[in-house]
């Protein structure tokens, strides 16, 4: 039939046309804009209105809004539109936006994503566009500077930097007859066992939901603490060393399996997020945990519960007491660069205001430290009387300092670290649950590392 043959021809044409379009080479990303000459970043004589977009995860959004308001008062020609996403969804949301080349101007970044994002060209080195930011480097904690550096270039200014700390409930320990903090993982086991015998159902809780970014940091801290010196996970050539029987990682996994099997480790830890972990500690449901230090201000907040003021930081139990120090930072995307010098200038002003000095002071960083108990990378702040007073209200400053000195950045921060870290979470779970032998889980993690490295 003639009609039917025309139909068929039309359909074939359509499919062919779609196929031809579909088979065209993928769109090439626009070439990276070259850094402008320094003079181009200087404020223009007549300040043009500039609108910046700033994306963060959802923490302290009221404080962020207030900081933005003050920034805008200082620079009336700059308007900042703030958008926030849950911390648990932040990475995936940003990756989706970046991959679609839908760049916000300024974003929160983290040391464990920097290599991934910078190598993909999703972030730009701020030192190329705001040359004076390098002046801050001398005042930064080495682990924080390392966490913001990729291929020798600085990609951010610190929003906060913290250590992963071992925390215990002093009141519960005293009740169980212990008058000092545990120093080794065996001590933690012994104390947890005694606490369990006295009625505390699960003395240890962690926020080890697979979506929780602090999970691998806490696990890595445990491994660091059980290892003397560097190369607890990888050797100098970035080859995995953790998948050997007797390694620090193996010992920690053995310990985790033991406390899980003996009912000392809350099994719900494997689905617990940080906020629930904090609440469980405040309620006295557990005596031991590991979390980022900034939570200390929250757990010890007066009136926050029966045990407020009873939570103490102990050096990470283990052989070396080392722990992970990490940094979250303000970063700039190619979106700013593509928009031209006015935007670059405005973004640099933003970075200086939020992560650097204003009128000679780390205004915003100090505010986070004093009001929210967030740690910092800027070492001079340790001498600031306001900061010392604020930190003393929830913690023992000498222990905090001592732990900070033992902190080091995560090993293996590479372009594939982010993907590996996600993979490792499931393997650690399977080993704890007894679904996979410890050696197999560690070997799977090592093999994945090598596969991603290729």
């Amino acid at each position: 039939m003639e009609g039917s043959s025309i139909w068929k021809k039309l359909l074939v044409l359509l499919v062919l046309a779609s196929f031809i379009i579909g088979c065209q080479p993928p769109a090439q990303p626009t070439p990276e804009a070259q850094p402008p000459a320094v003079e181009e970043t200087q404020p223009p004589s007549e300040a043009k209105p500039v609108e910046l977009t700033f994306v963060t995860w959802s923490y302290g959004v009221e404080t962020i809004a207030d900081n933005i308001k003050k920034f805008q008062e200082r620079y009336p020609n700059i308007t900042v539109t703030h958008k926030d996403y849950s911390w648990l969804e932040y990475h995936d949301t940003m990756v989706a936006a970046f991959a679609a080349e839908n760049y916000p101007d300024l974003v929160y970044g983290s040391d464990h994503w920097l290599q991934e994002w910078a190598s993909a060209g999703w972030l730009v080195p701020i030192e190329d566009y705001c040359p004076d930011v390098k002046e801050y480097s001398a005042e930064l904690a080495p682990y924080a500077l390392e966490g913001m550096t990729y291929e020798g270039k600085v990609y951010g200014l610190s929003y906060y930097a913290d250590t992963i700390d071992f925390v215990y409930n002093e009141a519960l320990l005293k009740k169980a007859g212990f008058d000092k903090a545990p120093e080794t993982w065996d001590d933690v086991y012994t104390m947890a066992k005694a606490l369990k015998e006295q009625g505390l159902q699960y003395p240890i809780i962690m926020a080890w939901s697979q979506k929780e970014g602090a999970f691998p940091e806490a696990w890595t801290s445990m491994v660091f603490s059980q290892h003397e010196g560097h190369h607890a996970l990888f050797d100098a050539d970035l080859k995995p060393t953790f998948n050997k029987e007797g390694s620090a990682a193996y010992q920690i996994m053995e310990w985790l399996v033991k406390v899980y099997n003996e009912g000392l480790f809350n099994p719900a830890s494997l689905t617990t997020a940080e906020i629930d972990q904090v609440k469980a500690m405040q309620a006295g449901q557990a005596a031991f945990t590991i979390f980022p230090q900034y939570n200390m201000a929250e757990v010890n907040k007066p009136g926050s519960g029966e045990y407020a003021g009873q939570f103490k930081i102990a050096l990470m139990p283990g052989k070396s007491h080392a722990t992970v120090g990490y940094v979250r930072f303000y970063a700039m995307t190619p979106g700013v660069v593509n928009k031209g010098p006015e935007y670059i200038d405005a973004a640099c002003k933003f970075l200086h205001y939020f992560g650097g000095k204003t009128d000679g002071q780390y205004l915003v960083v100090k505010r986070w430290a004093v009001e929210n108990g967030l740690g910092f990378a800027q070492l001079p702040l340790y001498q600031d009387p306001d900061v010392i007073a604020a930190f003393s209200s929830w913690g023992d400053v000498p222990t905090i300092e001592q732990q900070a000195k033992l902190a080091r950045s995560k090993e293996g921060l590479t372009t594939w670290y982010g993907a590996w870290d996600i993979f490792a979470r499931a393997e650690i779970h399977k080993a704890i649950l007894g679904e996979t032998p410890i050696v197999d889980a560690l070997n799977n993690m090592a093999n994945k590392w090598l596969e991603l490295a290729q």
Partner: protein
Amino acid sequence: MTTLDHAVIRRKAKLWDRLYPYFSVLLPILVIGLFTIYPVLYAVRISFYQYILTKPKVHPFVGLANYIEVVTSYYFRNSLINTAVYTVAAVIGITLFGLGVALLLNSKIRSANALRVIILLPWAIPAVVGGLIWKWILNSDFGILNGILYAAGFIKEYIPFLANPNLAKLSLIMAAIWKEGPLAAIFFLAGLQLIPNELYEAAKIDGGGGWKIFRHVTLPLLKPIILIVVIYETITAILVFDLIYVMTGGGPGDATSMISWFAYAEIFKNLNLGHGVALAVIIALIILALILAYLRIIKYEEVVG
């Protein structure tokens, strides 16, 4: 008007009559081509290239490598087994739940009318919200299910449902039945109301009891609806993502990592778009096979009927 004019008009009308159908379907074809065929072909194309998001400038052609790599991995086998277990359990559960509820609603109980509306509520709730509701119900510290079981003396301590591999799977299945069951119930109810009363009366006169009538009258006449429900719910179960995303995140370990979650993880966690799209193509082929099977069954039913 001359004969020539008439001939021209007739020729134009004839041409318009022939072209009109094509013009009328041109727009839908363009829309389908642009928003369905093109993206599908583009996705198929990507699946033959190495497409790692952190290397936006390097996309070498790798042929079937993406397919081979994902299909031969432990994680594919694991997610396929998880998906199969979940699909079988969820489809059986949804079908039985839907049928039971429909039989209840079709009875002459007084509250049937009100129940018809209430029963649809879980289906009307977005899956993400449903997932959050279940996450809270099952919470190991303050979840109502733990509270009820504890108060009733069934358990001595709260159970971390979502932290245990088997219980986490079971929880997902339960949430799926709660979410999808109402839709199945409405399908079945529509089917039940189409069965003529005379058939039941005749069966009763012949001495049929409740079970026999259900077995020999209701069930055979509901067969087409059962088929629709089974096929539709199978497709929905294979594609499940939102419940996993909210409730378990694929964990603990990889106990609830289904095939669609695996595809998501490959793209957004491993940043390997090539692998993720290859998985999406595999999922699409599975679904396509199911749809074709469904169409054949329907056609067979029509012929036999």
